[in-house]
């Protein structure tokens, strides 16, 4: 079994496990929440597709050009775990404060994972993007320094999409 297949199966199993856990713990509308997050991430991935390179995945994982639904699932799990952790640890915090903590948690999870993907070579950046990099990396990682502020920027758009669409459903 190749390394990439193990990664793909792990991401799928992890997301499924998270879904079951949330169902078991009594979270409401779990499937809907997963779908909204999936759509939010996917919209952003399609929009910014020329900037990233996801190579080496199995053919069945690709949706459009080099966008893979497995990585989208991975992002969904990262978002969901961060939201759950913040809601659990800082449950008494107001929504406005929790929002910044979501971003912080996502950043803390994503940087090591992105680092791993870059080392394995399945993740890369297109020339249009690398041409704007300063060339400085986050210490002990191959991740560009720009990721530190770029990550919260795009995750804030996806997070608010998730929160707002959820709110739309809950109001109806």
């Amino acid at each position, binding site marked *: 079994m190749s390394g990439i297949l193990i990664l793909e199966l792990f991401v799928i199993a992890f997301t499924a496990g998270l879904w079951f856990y949330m169902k078991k713990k*009594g*979270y*409401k*509308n779990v499937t809907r*929440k997963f779908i909204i997050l999936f759509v*939010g991430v996917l*919209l*952003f991935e*399609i*929009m*910014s*597709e*020329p*900037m990233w390179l996801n190579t080496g995945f199995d053919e069945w994982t690709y949706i459009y*050009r080099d966008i893979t639904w497995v990585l989208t699932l991975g992002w969904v799990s990262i978002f969901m775990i961060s939201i759950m952790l913040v*809601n659990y640890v800082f*449950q*008494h915090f*107001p*929504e*406005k404060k929790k*929002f910044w903590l979501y971003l912080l948690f996502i950043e803390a999870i994503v940087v090591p994972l992105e680092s791993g993907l870059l080392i394995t070579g399945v993740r890369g950046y*297109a*020339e*249009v*993007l690398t*041409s*704007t990099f300063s060339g400085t990396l986050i210490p002990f990682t191959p991740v560009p320094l720009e990721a530190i502020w*770029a990550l919260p*920027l*795009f995750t*804030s*758009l*996806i997070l*608010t*999409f998730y*929160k*707002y*669409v*959820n*709110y*739309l459903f*809950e*109001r*109806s």
Partner: protein
Amino acid sequence: MIGLYSGKWFLIIVTNSFPSSPIFPYYPSNCKRFKYDYINIIIKNEVQMVLFELSVISLSIIFLLILKKLDKDILRKFGIVFIAVLLFEYFTQALWLNVNLERWAYLYLDVSWIITLGWATIIVVSMAIINLYFPRYSERSRFLLYLIIITIIGLVAEAVVVNLGIRQYSSAVKDVLIGYNILGGVPIEVLYYIPVFMALVLSFSRYWEISFGEPDKSTSTKKEGSRVNKLAKKKTAKRRTKK
């Protein structure tokens, strides 16, 4: 007159080396006349850009002044939308090229606050129109209406900036395009890109508007909401026992 546009002096100096300059594809019979026309084109473009920038700024101010009479929170809403658009533009700046604008119009690389201002105005005005004419519609229906009207206005605005030579697309984006253009040079894919971009920007702005207006209740999930309510109930119970 040329001195006013000092930013373009370099180009004018280049034309002084005419007719040996490789910029020109052919040698016209009257070199002086040709050089004069070329300088005129530069000035014309420069004036066009200044006019465009001033139009965007003045239209934004006018619309904001009008909307201020209808909505006292319009400046806050505008600020949130401006930040949302800027976040998106900053993040995807490698994909789009905003060229030929004045130096003062740029914030970072080719991210221009004039373009951001234009988008923010389109969004805020569209939302205000929908809210004004369809106040009884549900939030969800209005959200879809926002998307439709912004896509229509945004498409026209995109055609304006493309035809003025301000908006260009990076090679990475061109590789993805199917090559079918509408409204004189706007890729057909814009019909997809604008609603997607707007869905994210509108969600961001509505989320923060609601967060500022109705903290905790509206943006929390049912489970979170119930937790907050429980905590609030506990606090009030404690206060009562203290009394």
